[in-house]
């Protein structure tokens, strides 16, 4: 009996070691690919002047979709911020998703909105649209507001926006995100610079807005968050976007375009069925379906990412809200894997089936489970006195130093290319964060992920909680 247990133990140990090594090698590969991608972007960026596009009659039209639910606190400044975007041909579609506060009333009064008979074509099914508004003031002629019955999800609201979008590309953002004024120019650039592939989605780096300074919805000073929890998220975002997404983008394997900011090909999005309102990870789900549609219909597609930070979002600063957010994300991932499992290792879906899906399955979905079981086994072995402590500590140190290196490299790519943050102190502040991330932040992520999986398996009903934002203000 003890022989069998020992053999099983060895198999478990070896499997975990191989799993860990593959994961670390994948991160090493991503570090290398992201370096190439970021360098290529930075080099080329010097030669493409945005002002040429900003005044061109040939610029493709873009619709901005901004769903809003009970955003009365900041709605006016947020819409004003969107109206200042630098692009020659765009419209803003704001979707009031059945707000129970005065969001709609404020919009009507501030922007002189009146109801119009709009030819609404429900290409994607949504909750009913009550009314559609346009402004009588020519200064706001690019603004359109949809007032609809609450669909209990951002997906439903965004789908209503897609139904009225006039242009071939739409940018999906959250109304409370702060966008760089050149966001549309930057996002459409990869679409216009692709020779042989159809670019179906473009994403850009998101950053945490918590300690940044804003004036009338425009970012005036970028700072790493002062609070620890948002600062961990800033570091995580840099690693995820600048290293992860850019690395994947280099080999056309982007797994997700963030819901905070992304540009999409409207035709493919509609043909794929739009956002899934029952999904908890609707952004990733949509991209998966768009890629799937492209494969099924022999569309030679690509998904691109750019390393520039174009969007600032308020990160949860309390554990309660953070828990809710991450549980939802984990549940969304589990849902996605379940819904599209037939793409897993399916050569018919090319890189999507052979690279993106296996990576997400093994190293995103299974990682928290493997980590958790690993800790349990560790504790059991420790109780049984079967741990070789010097070796165990060495292995822990190995993972710890490697994690710090990968995060520091992503901060390096970010700093080499854009030199964000004004002072040295702020950069040092950020560079110190990875040392604590592994010890304090990572365990939280694992726990919340497991909670999300549990909710997925038990089918627990979950309400779409509001983020309880603090709002962005001007420095006093």
């Amino acid at each position, binding site marked *: 009996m003890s022989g069998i247990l020992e053999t099983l133990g060895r198999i478990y140990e070896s499997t975990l*070691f191989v799993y860990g*090594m593959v994961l*670390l090698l994948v991160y090493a590969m991503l570090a290398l690919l992201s370096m190439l991608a970021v360098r290529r972007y930075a*080099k*080329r960026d010097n*030669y*493409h002047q945005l002002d*040429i*596009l900003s*005044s*061109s*009659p*040939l*610029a*493709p039209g873009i619709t901005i979709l901004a769903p809003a639910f009970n955003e009365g606190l900041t709605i006016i400044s947020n819409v004003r911020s969107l109206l200042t975007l630098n692009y020659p041909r765009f*419209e803003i579609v704001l979707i009031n998703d059945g707000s129970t506060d005065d969001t709609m009333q404020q919009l009507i009064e501030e922007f002189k909105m*009146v109801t*119009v*008979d*709009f*030819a*609404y*074509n429900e290409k994607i099914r949504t909750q009913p649209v009550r009314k559609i508004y*346009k*402004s*009588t003031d020519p200064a706001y*002629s690019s603004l359109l507001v949809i007032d609809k019955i609450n669909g209990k999800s951002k997906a439903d609201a965004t789908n209503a926006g897609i139904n009225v979008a*006039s*242009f071939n590309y739409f940018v999906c953002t959250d109304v409370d995100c702060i966008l760089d004024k050149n966001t549309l120019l930057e996002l459409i*650039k990869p*679409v*216009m*610079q*692709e*020779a042989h592939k159809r670019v179906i989605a473009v994403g850009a780096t998101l950053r945490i807005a918590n300690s940044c300074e804003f004036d009338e919805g425009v970012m005036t000073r970028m700072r790493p968050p002062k609070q620890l929890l948002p600062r961990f998220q800033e570091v995580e975002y840099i690693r995820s976007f600048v290293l992860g997404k850019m690395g994947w983008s280099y080999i056309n394997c982007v797994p997700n375009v963030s819901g905070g900011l992304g540009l999409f090909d409207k035709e493919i999005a509609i043909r794929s069925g739009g956002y899934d309102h029952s999904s908890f990870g609707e952004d990733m789900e949509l991209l998966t379906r768009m890629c799937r549609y492209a494969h099924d219909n022999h569309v030679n597609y690509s998904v691109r990412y750019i390393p520039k930070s174009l969007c600032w979002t308020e990160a949860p600063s309390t554990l309660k809200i953070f828990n809710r957010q991450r549980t939802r994300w984990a549940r969304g991932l589990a849902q996605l894997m379940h819904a599209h499992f037939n793409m897993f290792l399916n050569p018919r879906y090319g890189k999507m089936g052979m690279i993106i899906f296996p990576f997400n399955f093994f190293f995103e979905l299974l990682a928290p489970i493997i980590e958790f079981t690993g800790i349990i086994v560790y504790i059991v072995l420790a109780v049984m006195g079967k741990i070789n402590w*010097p*070796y165990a500590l*060495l*292995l822990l*140190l*190995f993972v710890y*130093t*490697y994690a*710090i*290196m990968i995060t*520091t*490299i992503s*901060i*390096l790519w970010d*700093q*080499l290319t854009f*030199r964000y943050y004004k002072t*040295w102190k702020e*950069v040092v502040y950020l*560079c110190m964060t990875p040392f604590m991330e592994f010890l304090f932040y990572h365990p939280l992520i694992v726990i919340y992920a497991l909670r999300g999986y549990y909710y997925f398996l038990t089918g627990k009903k979950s309400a779409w909680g509001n983020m309880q934002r603090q709002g962005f203000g001007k420095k006093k």
Partner: protein
Amino acid sequence: MLDIQVPDFLEPVVNTFRYAPLAIQVAMVFIIIASLGTLLAYYSILRSRYRGYQRDKKLAFLHPKIDNLIIEEVLTNPTLLKDDVPVAHVQLNLEPFQELPLHKKWAREVLTERIIHFRRNVRGNMGELLRNLYLQLELDKDTMKKMRSGHWEKKVQALVEFTSMDMSIADVTILPLTNSRNRELRAAARHAYIKLSKNEPFKFFDVVTEPLLMWDQVELFRIITTTQNIAIPNFARWITYSANKSVVSFCLKLVVHYNQLPAVPAIVKLLETKDHYLRADAINCLGKLRVPDAEDKLIVMYSSQPLHCQIEILKAVGRISSGRHVDFLKQEFLHSTDFDLRKNAAKSLVKNEWTAKQVLEELLATANAENLRILKHCMNPLIKY
């Protein structure tokens, strides 16, 4: 066998490594790599920020100096007020420029950059005088060196500098670059060729094999439409003969911009192309040129077209607004099963309102709920699209 002497203090570590299982050996190697990698990353961040800081400091010192010199010696040069002195032969006072550290390459580059910046913002004799300054300070030699470089970035820089300073380059030097495999170099060479070629600035349209990307088209459109004294050819030549679809599509946009009605027969001929995207572009072009003669052909071909071509035809009939095809638009509005076709038919009916008023009134009175909403949508001046 190589026998390496290990210092005494490292002996226990080496022994641990030597007798450890493979997993631990790998971990130990990775700990060293990760620690060194992290330190190296810190050093690189530090170095890059320090360099950036130094560069900002240098520029903060140099920019105002250069700007003052350019304003004093060039932009307010008294010869600009004299009509009888040809600007090209004016010898500028270069002595004050010797105060600048021009023996350093980076300083010369900054100066070139500032001259280009000023030149983009002035016209006429002032621009000519800035060109004189560039030549008299022999900054063109640096540009020439860049042009001969093997690095594409340098070549692009040189082409931008030559173009900005209106320096002529032999066609044989630029033309091969217009088909370079490197996208940025290719684009820069095309821009340079259009701006600098004295003979046939559009000749590269004949030889271009790579597709003109949408971004290239935006850049070329700007260069072509803003360059002064450029001989605009009849773009029908490429619409008829070019095998490069992106060139044809781009020429259609130029035809619209320059309202080149002589190109209409070539565009009508293009309606027969098998590529329906190109066909849609041609229909769009005919609509924007408002060619009433093309309407009949468009109506005849309508039923055999894919959806996006049909939409373009409806739009074209609206833009041309001859009033001759109101019945066709009405039929499409009433009987088409596709929402977008009905909407575009309604829009075009509204554009033909001067003759279709009665039809519109009749439709408003009799249309079903959805069609009525479409009509009201199209008639509402607050709704643009």
